[in-house]
């Protein structure tokens, strides 16, 4: 290689996708998709332009949140959300443990395994809001429908992760316990539980946090919680009140994340 050629050569970083045809094909596909998607987008820009004033009003509302004029509704809504979160997480954990045990391949017989995995898959694919619509239709408006929705959603999250954790446990302690002639329950209690408990506690705390966030949403379809209050505030264009509710939610979520971080560090 001559000096001149070496000087003309320029290093470039290797691309993320090595196959050049795949790379070009993906880029072309993405361009075609973007053109189609943006082309069929129906947006009334005038309406957007008119709405910008209201956007500004909302930002002003965030700067000066109004906790006072709807304080009764806000506090009742937040309290109901918190109460729903606690009960739903408790029920969800109680249901997730048997389902999680059943969905662990190394513990459960095949039919039980398939049944529990099916339940987990159903809970994970169905959106909370959709489940809430169905439960509201069955159980009527109110926090009970919300509790059932969140409990059902908790199964999909907690039971799946618990089952994966059980499948990842060290088989040696379980085998040792089994060799002493222990029953199935004793095997769980001494062979499995100590190995998965710290993670289960951490995941439950995390789910508590998620359930609170979700409880603020399902109120929109009538399943109780602060969502209904929030919906009303937006409908009346009371942005200062809406901002107050959102700030309360953010503050509670931050506090919960901080607290669960502390507890998880102590447990693990």
């Amino acid at each position, binding site marked *: 290689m001559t000096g001149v050629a070496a000087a003309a050569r320029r290093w470039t970083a290797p691309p993320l996708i090595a196959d050049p045809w795949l790379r070009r094909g993906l880029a072309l596909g993405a361009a075609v998709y973007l053109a189609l*998607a943006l082309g*069929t*987008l129906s947006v*009334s820009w005038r309406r957007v332009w008119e709405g910008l004033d209201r956007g500004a009003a*909302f930002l002003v509302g965030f700067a000066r949140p109004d906790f006072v004029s709807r304080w009764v509704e806000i506090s009742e809504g937040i*309290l*109901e959300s918190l109460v729903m979160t606690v009960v739903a997480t408790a029920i969800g954990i109680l249901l997730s443990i048997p389902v999680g045990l059943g969905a662990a391949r190394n513990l459960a017989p095949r039919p039980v395994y398939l049944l529990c995995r099916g339940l987990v898959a159903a809970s994970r694919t169905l959106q909370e809001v959709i489940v809430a619509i169905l439960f509201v239709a069955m159980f009527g408006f*109110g*926090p009970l429908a919300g509790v059932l929705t969140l409990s059902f959603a908790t199964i999909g999250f907690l039971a799946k992760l618990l089952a994966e954790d059980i499948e990842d446990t060290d088989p040696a302690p379980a085998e040792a316990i089994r060799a002493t002639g222990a029953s199935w329950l004793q095997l769980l209690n001494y062979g499995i539980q100590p190995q998965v408990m710290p993670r289960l506690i951490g995941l439950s705390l995390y789910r508590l946090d998620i359930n609170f966030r979700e409880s603020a949403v399902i109120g929109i379809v009538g399943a109780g919680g602060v969502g209904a209050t929030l919906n009303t505030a*937006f409908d009346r264009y009371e942005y200062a009140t809406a901002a107050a509710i959102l700030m309360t939610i953010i503050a509670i979520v931050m506090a919960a994340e901080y607290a669960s971080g502390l507890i998880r560090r102590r447990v693990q």
Partner: protein
Amino acid sequence: MPVRHAAGVRVWQRRARRRQLLVWLGWLAGTLLIVASWQGIAANTMWNFVWDAPAQGADLLARMVPPRWAYTGRLWRPLWDTINIATLGTLAALVPAVPIALLAARNTTPSAVLVRPAALLLIVSSRSINSLIWALLLVSIIGPGVLAGIVAIALRSIGFVAKLLYEAIEEIDRAPVEAITATGAGRAQVVTFGIAPQVLPAFAGISVFRWDINIRESTVLGLVGAGGIGLELQSSVNVLAWPQVTMIFILILATVVVSEAISARVRHAII
């Protein structure tokens, strides 16, 4: 080691008495909290409706099947809108998420005292508020339609993508960064050649993961008027057209399953 003496025999215990007592108190407090919460819910529940629920459920099921297959023809356009909301919303979120992640990561932030907390606050605010609530807000500001949905999805995704990305940036190998800095590279060059190649696969994985979640979330945004198949769901539920609701559920489930499969394959290919 905590040992209890019972009739002259030493019995091993897992915890010392004081600690055992604390554990029991914790359980007691937790149980009381749950019972009290449950009573709050029970007081706000119409039990007549609840005892009626099995009958209602059976009735609902009877109304929901068979699904109205002919209704599918009217659903393709809303479904296309839903997919666009999720995809364009994810793309729109990636653009601000990258600089926010760089400002939030401990090893790239210009100031750990001033800038980092601000970036973290942005991330938490975006993450704490569900996309449906963002949609509620945006429908009230910029009017109902697909755009409100796209912006709602984007606002919710910024925090998610930025959080996972900044965690990935904090975990990078220091050596390449140091080597590139030693060549006299500027800040932007260090990011381009030292940091970007290390986090690019994670970034692609996070984006596809979030896109998958967004498909799921965008299916219900229409409930508050933010476009997509949720609009049809809302109008069908409002007129109690349950066979149409079933049809929409089937389509949503199929879309979610396909998007999850795509996301799993892409992430598998990257990692």
